[in-house]
């Protein structure tokens, strides 16, 4: 096994070197943290990647544009829909494709549902890392199940949705689907209240989370951290607001900001973000127009993916995925395959500051901090 270049020397001091992972119950997959311990205190921590590496980028460079879509599902497999969104956005930018109104609404609805799914699942998993024996996780999964049923009914799959197409979406939302989504939104606040009663004011949770893994706003920006982790540090940066991509600038929603940038803020910002997503969903469901779901110009490419040849050029499409800024950098050389395809994975880049957050904390905190950053190994290792 390779040697990890820790900043402190392990041999001289009374230190213990432990590998958390690649097989460990709390590393959310096959992530490895090489940790230097002095007693229970962390003196050094280096993340080690690549256990789930499958060279996603090269796979994509050898496939037609449309055939990459199912592979993007497998990046962040908790919310495949937002990955689809990012990729579709980048390629539409490249090819200059317009998306019909109704399709935009469907996209937003599905992406926000995916965000809710992700956030409740993350909070559940984080609580598991904190040692709560599956109860919050299973409550979260209970609600997630209903949303996944929607996904299954609409997109055909619960996790690997493969739903977005360049210039539209694959299936239309029927009236029944919309009614079902409305029902879910209606019952969600009650669930959130229950969830908060269980967690938010719990003294043990507060003790474990408050003032743990603090990340200052400046450090967060410099380290390129995005998403709820950044906003927990108090930086008002939400790409839905900043870029207003798709039709997000039509909705009235707010950006919740944390105070200290600790684990508790990251937890609570996610809860608040779920509420904002519900707000967006309500507006989108009220306003969704009738109409086409595919751009007419893009229709023939559904049947002939190899005829889809975007003009020579490059595009960088980014979206606010639940984990942070998910960017797709696509370079076209006028052939059916992308010449260069790169994923800016928030799960990976948010780990840049992992060591600073963990230094001086206890072992148990490192696990919780990792849980609060919210990584998915499919995206981290690609």
């Amino acid at each position, binding site marked *: 096994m390779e040697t990890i*270049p820790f900043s402190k020397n392990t041999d001289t001091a009374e230190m213990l070197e432990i590998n958390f992972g690649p097989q460990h119950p709390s590393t959310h997959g096959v992530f490895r943290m090489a940790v230097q311990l002095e007693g229970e205190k962390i003196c050094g921590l280096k993340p080690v990647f*690549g256990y789930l590496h499958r060279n996603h980028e090269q796979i994509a460079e050898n496939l037609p544009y449309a055939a990459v879509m199912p592979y993007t599902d497998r990046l962040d497999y908790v919310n495949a829909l937002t990955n689809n969104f990012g990729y579709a956005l980048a390629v539409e930018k490249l090819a200059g494709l317009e998306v019909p109104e109704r399709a935009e609404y469907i996209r937003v609805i599905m992406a926000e549902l995916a965000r809710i799914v992700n956030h409740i699942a993350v909070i559940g998993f984080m609580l598991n890392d904190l040692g709560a024996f599956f109860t919050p996780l299973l409550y979260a999964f209970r609600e997630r199940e209903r949303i996944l049923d929607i996904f299954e009914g609409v997109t055909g799959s619960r996790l690997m949705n493969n739903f977005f197409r360049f210039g539209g979406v694959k299936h239309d939302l029927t009236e029944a689907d919309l009614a079902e989504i409305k029902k879910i939104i209606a019952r969600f606040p009650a669930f959130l209240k229950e969830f908060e009663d269980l967690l938010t004011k719990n003294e043990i949770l507060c003790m474990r989370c408050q003032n743990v893994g603090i990340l200052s706003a400046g450090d967060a920006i*410099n380290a*390129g951290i995005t998403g709820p982790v950044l906003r927990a540090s108090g930086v008002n940066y939400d790409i839905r607001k900043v870029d207003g991509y798709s039709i997000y600038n039509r909705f009235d929603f707010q950006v919740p900001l944390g105070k200290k940038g600790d684990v508790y803020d990251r937890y609570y910002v996610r809860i608040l973000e779920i509420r904002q997503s519900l707000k967006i969903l309500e507006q989108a469901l009220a306003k969704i127009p009738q109409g086409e779901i595919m751009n007419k110009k893009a229709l023939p490419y559904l049947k002939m993916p190899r005829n889809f040849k975007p003009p020579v050029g490059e595009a*960088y499409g980014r979206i606010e995925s639940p984990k942070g800024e998910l960017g797709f950098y696509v370079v076209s050389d006028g052939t059916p395959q992308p010449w260069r395809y790169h994923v800016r994975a928030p799960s990976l880049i948010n780990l840049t500051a992992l060591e600073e957050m963990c230094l001086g904390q206890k072992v148990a905190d490192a696990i919780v901090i990792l849980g609060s950053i919210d990584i998915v190994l499919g995206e981290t290792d*690609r």
Partner: protein
Amino acid sequence: MDIPVSEVKKELEARLPDVKLRAVGNSLLVENPDDLPRVALFLKENPKFLLDYLSSVTGADYLSYLESVYHLYSMAKKHGPVALRVRVPKNKARIPSLVTVYRSAELQEREAYDTFGIIYEEHPDLRRLFMWEDFEGHPLRKDYAQEDSETLEAADIAWLEARGVEVPPEMKEKAKALEAAGQRAVAQKPEKPRN
């Protein structure tokens, strides 16, 4: 909110006159890679741009040269992106690292080093990110030859036999023939159907 490249270029040329720049498409090519940290630092600190957030760093292989592309945004002013690019020849792929300016480059430059073999000088910890330490080659380069998983090489057979695995004789012969010819077991690239 997009920033027009021409504006950035004008400002840069006025303030850093010795830096050679060229607008490529919607991005700015820094002709001399050594100027890159200066340009980045200027863009980060100039109050007009305040590009404090490096979103994405990636490499690209354009056959005759390698390229490193940087997408800069501003969190303070909420605008962007400004894309910077740097081109280096394949045999001398060295670019100064941006980690001192933007920490977010740390893991991304490691990734570009891993996949393209671009050496980011003065990077604090330039190791492979995804592949293991003694992996040969850089998988995203267009000339990367993938190892054939079906064919064994002499070294593989020695490794297997040291662990008591029986290797079929025809595989051994194939390995011997390969070794005699001085070749590696290279997978057939899937031919790219370009219509």
